[in-house]
């Protein structure tokens, strides 16, 4: 089990590395023609601190600064004038960029590092000024650093701060190590992005050869399956908006079924974990169907309620609701996992401590009125030539089965929600509801199939003639219980981070 976990983690780490490519398209156009843009890069070494500050003036500020650059007014910028202006800007920058190490303000040594023009729009020019600020420091013991950039605070513009340690480790830096704008050379052009406006940063540094990297800004591009699902999502949204013929209707329902199935197969929402749960708790095929049905019902109902709420009020933020539902779902999964674990441990304690015969053990787990069903499990254990082994626990309790189903369906899938909202907007509410039901049914199908598969695998495995493997099968309940608990906590924690952020 542990080796498997290690292998799984290693594979996962490799996937993460591959997926974590720097993304986000960049544009050559500057942010705005009125803007004063700044990039402050902080490099921390054990014995010194270096700041590289770049000021990028857009077309109008460049023109406004013209008389400050061309001091003799001859219409040309001489080398001496350029250096004088560079020095002047950098002195102002050194006054405005305040860094405090453990509360003591650092005194900068200033070195002008360049000034130049670049062609801008409308036949005008933009200008870039670079400054190198430096100071001695003792970052050989843990230190707190507070950086505040108040240079040209009243002007509109892009302001970014980056920080990197070299032989100094930064603990959870709030700013990235690399500039998203490639040091103001290209600004991300994204309709959903606001200009960066980072004016201060609080860092904690400690000695060490850590990676020193900050929060790298990355965009998850997703694996091929996710991309396919996303493409199918768009297809379905398109179908809802297009002309509605019977063929399109059937196609839409089929597509919704497939999408639901695919979404359940994608990791997330702890859906897949439920299959493991059924297997681990020695569930029966019927349990898999029950969970599937509950997931469909919960998901359909959740999407409908949330969809109606979102169309009825504008003040409700869909994000927040999804976040809170995510927390609830995670807590529910964790609770079921904890109950499972407690049950397994209790049973194991009894089995090992008192060698109680399996038949008595079952008393704990009796589902009232269902005792006669134990025959199947008994049959298995008695085949095994009387080998001592803990007896698989009884069928999952109805309560925790329902809990798992509800947790799985509680967080509405955003794509189903969009399909519904789009349909309501077009006055095709009934079609939208039909698609959402199909979506839920698709999800349930995957889940039930996965559950059934695992039940089959477990049954075969448990009856394996080789002793080691059979013993491993016996460990499965504890392992799955722990996994369900961990995943539940993880889901709840992640959703909470999203909500509280």
């Amino acid at each position, binding site marked *: 089990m542990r080796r*498997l976990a290690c292998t*799984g*983690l290693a594979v*996962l780490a490799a996937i*993460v590395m591959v997926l974590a490519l720097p993304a*986000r398209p960049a544009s050559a156009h*500057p*942010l705005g*023609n*009125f*803007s004063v843009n700044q990039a402050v890069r902080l490099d921390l070494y054990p014995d010194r601190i270096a700041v590289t500050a770049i000021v990028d003036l857009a077309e*109008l*500020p460049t*023109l406004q600064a013209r008389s400050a650059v061309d001091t003799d007014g001859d219409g040309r910028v001489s080398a001496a004038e350029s250096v004088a202006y560079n020095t002047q800007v950098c002195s102002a920058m050194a006054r405005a960029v305040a860094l405090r190490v453990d509360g003591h303000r650092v005194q900068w040594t200033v070195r002008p590092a360049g000034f130049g023009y670049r062609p801008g*729009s*409308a*036949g005008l020019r933009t200008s870039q000024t670079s400054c190198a600020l430096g100071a001695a420091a003792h970052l050989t013991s843990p230190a707190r650093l507070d950086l505040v950039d108040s240079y040209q605070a009243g*002007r*509109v513009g892009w302001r970014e701060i980056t920080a990197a340690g070299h032989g100094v480790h930064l603990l959870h830096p709030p700013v990235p190590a690399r500039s998203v704008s490639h040091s103001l050379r290209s600004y991300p052009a994204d*309709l*959903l*992005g*606001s*200009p*960066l*406006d*980072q004016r201060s940063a609080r860092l904690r540094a400690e000695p060490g050869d850590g990676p020193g990297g900050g*929060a790298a*800004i990355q965009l*998850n591009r*997703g694996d091929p399956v*996710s991309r396919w699902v*996303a493409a199918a999502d*768009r297809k379905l949204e398109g179908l809802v*908006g297009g002309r509605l013929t019977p063929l399109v209707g059937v196609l839409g329902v089929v597509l919704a079924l497939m999408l639901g199935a695919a979404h359940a197969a994608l990791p*997330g*929402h*702890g859906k*897949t974990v439920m299959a493991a749960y059924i297997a681990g708790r020695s569930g029966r095929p019927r349990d898999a169907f029950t969970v599937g049905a509950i997931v469909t019902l919960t998901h359909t109902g959740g999407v409908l309620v949330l969809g109606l709420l979102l169309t009825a009020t504008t003040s409700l933020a*869909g*994000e927040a609701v*999804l976040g809170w539902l995510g927390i609830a779902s995670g807590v529910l999964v964790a609770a079921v996992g904890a109950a499972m674990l407690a049950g397994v441990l209790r049973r194991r304690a009894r089995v090992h401590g008192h060698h109680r015969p399996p038949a008595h053990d079952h008393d704990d787990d009796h589902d009232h009125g269902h005792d006669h069903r134990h025959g199947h499990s008994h049959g298995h254990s008695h085949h095994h030539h009387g080998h001592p082994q803990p007896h698989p626990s009884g069928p999952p309790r109805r309560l925790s089965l329902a809990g798992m189903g509800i947790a799985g369906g509680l967080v509405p*899938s*955003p794509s189903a929600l*969009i399909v519904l*909202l*789009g349909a309501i*907007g077009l006055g095709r509410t009934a079609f939208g509801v039909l698609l959402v039901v199909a979506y839920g049914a698709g999800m349930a199908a995957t889940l039930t199939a996965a559950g059934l*598969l695992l039940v089959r*695998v477990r049954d075969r495995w448990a009856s*394996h003639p080789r002793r080691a*493997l059979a013993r491993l099968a016996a460990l499965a309940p504890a392992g799955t219980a722990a*996994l369900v608990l*961990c*995943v539940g906590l993880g*889901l709840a924690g*992640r959703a909470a981070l*999203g*909500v509280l*952020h």
Partner: protein
Amino acid sequence: MRHRILIVGLAVILVAGVSAVFGLRHGTSPNASAAQAPGTRARAGQAPDGQLSEGIARAQQHLRAVPGDYVTWAALGSAYIERARVTADPAYYPKASGALRHSLKLRPAGNPAALTGLGALANARHKFATARHLAHRALRADPYSADAYGVLADALTQLGNAPAATEAVQHMLDLRPGLAAYARASYDLEQHGRLGAAAALMRRALGDAVDPADIAFCRYQLGELAWRAGRLDAAATQYAAGQAADPGYLPLLAGQGRVAAARGQTRTALAGYAELTARYPSPGYLMEYANLLRATGHPARAGQQLALAAAALRLFQANGGTDDLGAAQLALAQGDVQPAVRAAEREWSRRHFADVADTLGWALHRSGANGKAISYARKADALGARNPGYLFHLGMIELSLGRSSDARHHLRAALALNRHFSPLDAPAAVAALDRLGA
């Protein structure tokens, strides 16, 4: 064989479970793009456009999760236009256009919000005929959209169709009486010279305002109305109240600069304009600053500001705007009379707004065509706006045509409204009246 299946199965579960924990899922996570978080948070901390920034950040986050929500795309586009207005940064226009067009692409028919947003964008870019067309289309999709009537009213006002503009404002007032409708109705009354009624409506708008930026806007407009009527102290009080509400509302600096100049506090006035044009280098403010510099004996610095105004105008056009009115006024300030006449005529061929008639008349007067000039100067005053600038131009043209009594009447009327109406023109009006022996 069997155990191989099992190992694969377990590995699948593990990877699935762990990746659920680590958030490998594609896109749908609420905090999928942490990239935007620092910027938006810092923006929201700023007082002036805090609410607007919050709204923009929320819409952006929502659209990352729900990219097909055309209503929010339209709202985001409109918020970008508002941001461009507040920050005076035209770079938000292409962004706004992108968001609004995306909304329209998602929902081509029956999407009045996107059409209204595109109309507001066209107004901001001085493409008033396009704005009128878009507003009409939006109203066909939703005849009860107060916002669409607002866009229509703005476009019609600027196109010089005053009766239709008044009607659109009335529709807006009926559908949704509130700050936006009151402010437009107030402006409509101001165009007709009914300054008292305009101020009363603006005070109602102020009563509706909650956001500091809105309060500052209303106070600024009240200050402008007081200034138009020559009540310097009342204007100064309103500007100060606006600044107390929102120190970041920049037009207040222009108002305070005008009052300071009228009171003879030249140094304060120049410092105010210097700060204003550093933070908000719009062609209009740069020209006002240049006027003040020239009136106070700084012709070289005035020339620099006019060069900046020319650059700002070029950038406005490079960002998809059209402003031949501004170009004509700039050419006049620079003494290029013939280009001014041509630019003003181009603008007049597009729209018959009072300001355009006034500028065209004045350009024609400067080129010596006083016979043609006077008809435009009269058109400017046709609604009875009681604008001292219009009256001054009319009086000076009449003086050139030898109509002394008309000239005396209009020049006196201009000075009676506000004897400080312009640092350059008010003294010129006084001198002309002296020559007339009044």
